[in-house]
């Protein structure tokens, strides 16, 4: 078995602001998908785009 098969995945959503370019990393929520309009930018209140959804593995 691989190392990853024993580790627990934490899934994150990366949102990128279309105005100021700020990247925000948050926990994945159901109905998120890549290239969906995200939440408002915390810095400039501009609209964001989900550019990535990925898993990071932490050893259990």
């Amino acid at each position: 078995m691989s190392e990853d098969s024993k580790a627990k995945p934490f899934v994150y959503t990366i949102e990128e602001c279309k105005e100021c370019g700020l990247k925000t990393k948050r926990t994945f929520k159901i109905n998120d998908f890549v290239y969906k309009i995200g939440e408002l930018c915390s810095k400039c209140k501009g609209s964001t785009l989900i550019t990535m959804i990925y898993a990071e593995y932490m050893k259990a």
Partner: protein
Amino acid sequence: MNLTDIQLQLNPLFPTGNDPNSWWMYLIWILPTFIIMMYFQRIQMWMVSRDVARSVTKLKVMREQGRKEALEYAKSISPNVDQTERVDRFLEYFTIMPVDMDPSGIMKKLQHIMRIRDDRVKAEVKAMAPNMDVISASKMENILEAATILHLIYKVVRHFYLMGKKTSSMFFIIQLQMIMPILLQEAEALTKAIGTFRAGQPIGDGIGPMIVGKMMLNKEKRTVAKETVVSEDQYSGRTLYLMKAEGPAGSVGEPGTAVEKLIDEMGVKINSVIMIDAALKLEGEKTGELAEGVGAAIGGIGVDRFQIEEVATKHGIPVYAIIVKQSILDAITVMKKEIAESIEKVTKSIFSVIDEKTKEGDSVLIIGVGNTLGVAQ
């Protein structure tokens, strides 16, 4: 205690034949040797059988988990209907491959069979909840496919295990033991994949659609084949045709048919094709590494690859491939950070192929191959 003392103490274990009372020592040596000679194969069979039985139990647990998750998802989309019978029937669903003794024309037959299968799966899922949206339906299809494969792996392994026990044939059991680590790894990957499909998260195999999807943002999309879309763009005097399965539903589309239609039916003159896909890495290679090559980078049963190769050969179009390496587990479970972060490297690689291998005025078809679950465009 010196060496001579030790030798004297061990002497009774190695009788010389001069001592008439040492006959029992011969028994201690000869009896186990005789038993091992006579029953070695049975002892080995017993040990291997126990090992295989443990693995069969693990596969059974994973099969049950897959079925349970499929039932739970079916219940979440149609809470008032009991889907147990329909899901159980689906798990036993099979596809008979066309006869290959006369291979001429087999690809058309394969394509036909796979289309019927695909339509049947979609119809079954539609029957579960007629008002289900496209994304939920695609998730259900993916979950059912994974649960069916888990069911099949368990059934086939159990068959050979029971055959081995029934016929007392070591060869069934030993062969099972040899391939068991790979089967368990695949089954484990499928079990984890079901959770990813339920959540609608992008999988490692979705890296190709994710890269091309980014290039398609804010551009008009046209459906050219079933669940497959194309956009146009301009780059350094070249026309780019961008193709991927339509997301964020979990689909691989029909890139083979889409390429045929685009070039043969719609008459688009393509000078080069660039295909981006996930590919299985070898042990020791890093996840998320990219490699460039030539040829149609597309997996599956071979129908789409055949169609693309046919069209490319007919029109003399060079086909370039860029692959992102990953394991089977990475490919069907939620996309790893290393894979997602390869997007910039791959995009750079695509444009360097365009710059080096094409000239101004050319048309380039870029195909993002893979399951586009959780990835729009």
